[in-house]
């Protein structure tokens, strides 16, 4: 028997790791993977709450989150390829055309 709070703490740790990676990483692909890590952390809390309250809708939401993550990955990686083609770098510090 595992209390619900353990699952929530694990999900929070994974989300925090995702946020940290998003902030400290300089490679655009790794930043994108950190976003996926955050989505995974949220999915875990969805499933844990669904199990706790005996509501299956939580699992359906996880399904929708995965669909949106897949669409986001396809478009995001296409944008990364497009950026690499024009700028020839994956470092986000060098993609600074909008910066004053």
């Amino acid at each position, binding site marked *: *028997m*595992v209390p619900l709070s353990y699952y929530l703490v694990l999900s929070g740790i994974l989300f925090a790791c995702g946020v940290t990676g998003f902030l400290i990483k300089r490679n655009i692909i790794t930043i994108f993977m950190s976003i996926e890590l955050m989505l995974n952390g949220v999915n875990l809390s969805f499933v844990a709450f669904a199990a706790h309250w005996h509501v299956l809708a939580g699992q*359906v939401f996880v399904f929708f989150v995965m669909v949106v993550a897949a669409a986001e990955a396809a478009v995001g990686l296409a944008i990364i390829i497009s950026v690499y083609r024009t700028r020839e770098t994956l470092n986000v510090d060098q993609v600074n055309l909008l910066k004053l």
Partner: protein
Amino acid sequence: MLSVHLILFLMFGIVAVAGAVNLLVQRHPINSALSLIAVMAALAGEYMLLGAEFVAAVQVIVYAGAIMVLFVFVIMLLNAGVEEQTKGSRVALMFGVPGMLVGSLLVAWVVLKHSGTEAVAVGALPGAPSTIGELLFHEFLLPFEITSILILIAIMGAVVLASKPTVPGGGPAKKVND
């Protein structure tokens, strides 16, 4: 006393957290991608413990399978090398790290203290794929159909964005130099 369920939870949880930390520590994106796959596999184990077989299977097939293969393909296609490090800001180190530690300890304390001690049992919910399918095609039919449009738009967007850029007069677009 440690139950089998708790031991399995800790095992998968430790693998997941170790993978997440390894994602942050590694400098090469392909190593980060492989550790993210480990995190996703461990999370699939956690979903099995919660009795969500459908979500566990979809996690392995869609996330660890399809999405991560896409990532690895792009990393290899762009021949991504070791990440260049930039000097971190001093203020972030001085205030960010202690602030994050205090904040996360506070959140963990509140969650552990106030969310009760009711346990989540093994196979706690009837997560059979047939039940989820019924829910998906009755209660959530409209969102389900809308996601098909979303996927279609994403496919078209990916094709348009990743195809060779052309300028209106014909010929390839000029590179941006700065």
